């Protein structure tokens, strides 16, 4: 396991007036796999990703454990985290134009990643930058290296960002909504690039997204988050074929991904995700869940193994083992 998260809790505010954004989160990522964290905005998925590198907002506090290659990285001193960032864990963000310094050439920004960790001197880093741009299939890498971010296309920018994140050869790449700002065709290219890089560089990738298409394309395993907690964790194909959590199923239906009901009409999930200060009691999804029962309103479901997945639900949809009858009490 390259990454182990245990009982992660992220909150804001002073004691007595705390707002918890992520709670009781535990999951593991195996080396070399592509792990997708899905959820709506406000589910806490981005915060989770950021907390691995200590890049959450200054006001956020965290407790629990995050172990990367056996070492604890949560709440470590800044100096220690800086050695991690870029070098062992790379990170790619959503908005490539905003995320790049507008007054520096692209090549220099990639080279900076190398030089920040003392891995190369100026001329070597510059050369490596061009090589990296080539690696991510950017045509005419020399010209792009000399260009400014606003002079190249969105797709090229995102690839350049990936090159920047991978410059020092990290083992883990965190991609926060890497394709959200891109056109559909470019999206596919970037996803293919990520898959290729994973294969060739033995890279582990954590993708944070709300886009089912991305998940379907790439993910090996999925973590579904809702209102700061884990709803379901498991292998991608299992979850997509037979979602056990009502929220997961609703997500699939809203993206027409589910195979359980191929003729279902596209449906939006009713209601909206609860805000930090207004989490409902019991299961946080119960106000929007068509299958909610009395216990859902009172008891918080904990994440437990359920067949091939881990699940936090009192009344799961699919049977734990295929072929068995549905669990009692479900619709």
């Amino acid at each position, binding site marked *: 396991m390259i990454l182990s998260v245990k009982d992660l809790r992220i909150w804001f505010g002073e004691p007595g007036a705390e707002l918890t954004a992520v709670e009781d989160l535990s999951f593991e990522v195996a080396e070399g796999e592509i792990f997708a964290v899905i959820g709506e905005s406000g589910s806490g998925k981005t915060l989770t990703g950021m*907390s691995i590198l*200590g*890049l*959450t*907002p*200054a*006001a*956020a*506090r*965290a407790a629990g454990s995050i172990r990367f290659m056996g070492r604890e990285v*949560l*709440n*470590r*001193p*800044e100096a220690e*985290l800086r050695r991690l960032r870029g070098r062992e864990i790379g990170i790619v963000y959503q908005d490539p134009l905003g995320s790049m310094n507008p007054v520096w050439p692209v090549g220099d920004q990639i080279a900076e990643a190398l030089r920040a960790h003392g891995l190369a001197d100026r001329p070597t880093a510059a050369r490596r930058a061009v090589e990296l741009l080539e690696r991510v299939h950017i045509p005419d890498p020399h010209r792009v290296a000399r260009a400014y971010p606003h002079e190249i296309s969105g797709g090229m920018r995102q690839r350049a960002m990936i090159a920047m994140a991978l410059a020092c050869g990290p083992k883990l790449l965190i991609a926060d909504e890497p394709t959200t700002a891109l056109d559909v065709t470019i999206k596919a290219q970037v996803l293919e690039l990520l898959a290729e890089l994973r294969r060739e560089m033995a890279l582990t990738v954590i993708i944070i997204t709300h886009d089912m298409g991305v998940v379907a394309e790439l993910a090996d395993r999925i973590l579904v988050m809702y209102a700061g907690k884990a709803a379901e964790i498991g292998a991608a194909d299992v979850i997509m074929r037979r979602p056990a959590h009502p929220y997961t199923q609703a997500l699939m239906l809203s993206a027409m991904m589910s195979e359980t009901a191929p003729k279902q009409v596209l449906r939006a999930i009713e209601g909206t995700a609860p805000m930090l200060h207004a989490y409902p009691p019991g299961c946080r999804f119960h106000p929007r869940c068509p299958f909610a029962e009395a216990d859902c309103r009172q008891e918080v479901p904990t994440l437990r193994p359920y067949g091939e997945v881990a699940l936090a639900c009192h009344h799961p949809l699919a049977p734990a083992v295929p072929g068995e009858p549905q669990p009692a009490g479900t619709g």
Partner: protein
Amino acid sequence: MSGQGRAVIGPFRRASGGRAAERLLLLLAWLIVAALALFVFFAGLLAPYDPIILNIGQRLHPPALDHLFGTDEGGRDIFSRVVYGTRYSLGVSVAIVFAAAVFGVAYGAISGMASRRVDDVMMRTVDLFFGFPALVLAMAVAAAIGRGLDSVALSLAVIWWPGYARLVRGEVLRLRERPHVEAARALGVSSLTLLRRHIIPFVLQEVNVRVTTDIGYALVAVTALSFLGLGAESPTPEWGLLIRDSRPYFGSAWWYLVFPGIMIMLTATAFSIIGDDLAGRRRRSGAP
């Protein structure tokens, strides 16, 4: 997590302890303005002595209970002179800013509503005036038409109005595109009414903020010109003039320099604080 908090450079977050201090400052600022208003309108009641009559026997006395700010070279009570001087120093400043604002708003509103070409010409003209070294112009004007507070007022008003014209024109242009204005226009409402009812009220809010802060700056400029001898003339107890008069004596008569200066500083800062607060309120209220 970034265990070292502040030293990390990242998104900015304001310290929480500041709010109470800000409110206190604002209160102080309003108190100062209130006191100034009293000075302007009730100088006769508040000033213990006559500001102009000489009293050589008492010349250059340090501050004491009977002369709060000390006396000047003519034996006159400086506190009284300062109190009476408020209507000149502050009065002229307010007049200048208001005159500049009125003209600037009218000009900017017309420019903003006019056609592209007219607007262009009007704004180019304004741009010519922009950033002009004020003092120099005031000197030249005072040379030509004579000294005095009115000459100073004229020069400064001329320097000041382009700022308002630009501000208002920008706001008018922006508000023109707003849905409620477009809707009104589609209904056939005339430009003038559009301006009056839908645009100017919002613009004036913005102008208000600027006017408040500018009064402080105008005061500094007015006193500077009086200091140079361009503005008020003796024996008018204008604050800048007081400082000018103190020049031969302030080495030993420190009070002569300090108290008028503090008045200018307090007044300017008070208006600045109030202006800042108005700006903050406007931002927070989410005005269009």
